[in-house]
């Protein structure tokens, strides 16, 4: 697990986004997600992230299936890696290959997800969610949906 290395990044990113809403897509190359974090009046002023449809669906799929090994918010468990660190090491091709074919790691075995209809429709969405997490843009916890784009 790489929590120690991840943590300072997470703090730095979090500090940025808590200052005000952050439009990730506006910074540099196109990102597979849109995330806006900031104080939410509905939640008593607590910081809440709002995300696009794909990132939301990715979050949901992750916390229905993937979290049983990789833990809530993709931070990793005793037997499956912290995906915040891992996502920075692999590209989309490698990610899709692992999702389709499965992956044998140092500790555990991830099954192929190509035959699971509850997962295989959402590989792109999972990519969006995990990228947003790995970039430190999407904070922990349940995100809300951004209004649908016109």
């Amino acid at each position, binding site marked *: *697990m790489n*929590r120690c290395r991840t*943590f300072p990044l*997470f*703090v730095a990113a*979090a*500090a940025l986004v*808590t200052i005000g809403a952050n439009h990730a897509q506006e910074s540099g190359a196109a990102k597979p997600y849109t995330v806006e*974090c900031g104080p939410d009046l509905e939640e008593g002023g*607590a*910081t*809440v*992230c709002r995300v696009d449809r794909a990132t939301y669906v990715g979050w*949901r799929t992750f*916390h*229905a*299936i993937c*979290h*049983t*090994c990789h*833990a*809530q*918010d993709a*931070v*990793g*468990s*005793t*037997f499956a890696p912290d995906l915040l660190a891992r996502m920075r090491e692999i590209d989309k091709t490698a990610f899709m290959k692992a999702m389709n074919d*499965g992956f*044998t790691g140092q*500790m*555990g*075995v*991830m*099954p192929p997800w190509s*035959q*699971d*209809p*509850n*997962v295989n429709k959402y590989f792109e969405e999972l990519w969006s969610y995990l990228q947003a997490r790995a970039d430190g843009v999407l*904070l*922990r*916890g*349940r995100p809300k949906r951004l209004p649908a784009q016109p």
Partner: protein
Amino acid sequence: MTSKRFVIFLALVVPYFAGANEDLQRLTADSSNWATWGGDYAGTRYSQLTQIDKNNVGRLQVAWTFSTGVLRGHEGGPLVVGDTLYVHTPFPNKVFAVNLADQTIKWAYAPNQSADTIPVMCCDTVNRGLAYGDGKIFLQQADTWLVALNAESGEVVWKARNGDPAKGETNTNAPLVVNDKVITGISGGEFGVRGFVVAYDIDSGQQVWKAYSVGPDEELLIDPRRTTHLGEPIGASSSLDTWEGEQWRLGGGTTWGWFTYDPELNLVYYGSGNPGTWNPVVRPGDNRWSMTLFARDADTGVARWVYQMTPHDEWDYDGVNENLLVDLEVDGRMRKALVHFDRNGFGYTLDRENGELLVAEKFDPAVNWATHVDMRTGRPQVVDRYSTDNNGEDFNTEDICPAALGSKDQQPAAYSPRTNLFYVPTNHVCMDYEPYEVEYVAGQPYVGAVLTMFPAGQATGDGTTNLGNFIAWDAAEGKIVWSNSEPFSVWSGALATAGDVVFYGTLEGYLKAVDARTGQELYSFKTPSGIIGNINTWTHEGKQYIGVLSGIGGWAGIGMAAGLEGATDGLGAVGAYRSLSRHTQLGGVLTVFALP
């Protein structure tokens, strides 16, 4: 039943049971052994040994250690029979027979299991331990093979295939030897597996009986006229009538918990797990007999009585936790009682002869999904606000207590006849739960709910951040007597001794000894890894030892990172410090303690 009575009772009754496994009953009556997972058939995890007592336990020292060579979560604990200790590991489920005289390895068994089994185990590759009987050690492998090993040589005597991992069927439970049979269950509650219990012949490994949790009467081994629910015959089609169409075929009710046995009544006790998908909206009805306590005749498997604790589950409150069989005075009357601390947060006391419900009270004040249990109907009175079925699909129901982990999971409690108290390792975790529609594919996860978990204090608003408590419980009154707060869930099995000491382990890795009457901490030692195993005790050459497996993992190893840092509070030192990985790392080690 007190241990003293147990001894007398065995002497009188055993000869009348044809085929009774006198060997095991003799061994469990003698506290110098630890011959079955619960110390005795009643699952009390109580030892009559008195060398280590509350006055001297503070001087406890490590006597020896043993590495299992396996990294993943180590549940269960070692068995000791005579001068040999038998210890198991998580997948690949190695077994070591250790000579207590010099701690050399008499034999080792290392099964060759397919790695395909690993991803169909929902929450780590744990195994809860071995069973001993008739000169054999029984190992219930992850890949569902039940293996009988010669206790002297480690040679395989027989093997029986109990299920099919390709369908999501696996095993994590410890088997139980009863008379001339070996009883075992099945895991796979998150894969749509239909649960069952099987009795195998102890000599040949042939299946003697098999009883499903849900489905047609004949497959349930239920007698509609004689099997009772709260005193009433359950009638025909009691399970089928509570499912829509063919849904019972994916009806769950897996049986991955602990088994206990009353030799006098010849009844085996266990509970069943969650019904099918975690999405309650798509499976209307009570979904019988998921989430149910069963009392079955050991010879035939036929159910004497059943009691469904959580009809139509909406929260994943599996009913598989252990059932302690103790004689208690309840409302002025001695009862052959059964005491069960359920995932749903209620501590139940029943009459184990007939299944009469005597007490049902919350053993964590945070429990909020139901106000109380109606003592006439046995039904929990569900609070609408926390009903994930009422709120519907794609709706996030917030602040449900307890979380799916339960107020207590498999970590078994202990009972001391000297204090008449039950010692219960508990979780103090709540959750948000959002059901949604899923498709079933054999061998793929079949869940259908989005889950987030967090410390109970976040839901109750009482400002606490602890994730666990270790409590003493009065099962006649249904009341907490004392409660020790723990920063993390207490996920280890407890041990009570006649020295008036109670032992448990913590996720940071501490073995703790506390005063049985007050809960005051008397001793603490940090073992090499977090403890999710059970504390056991035995003697060798007249000296008392305490042993525990450490090795962080299991569901506890996932949940611990969860919810500690919310979007707002995660930036401070508190959230980071509390992350479990700052306290402990992986590694299976048996640590054995003794007085100097």
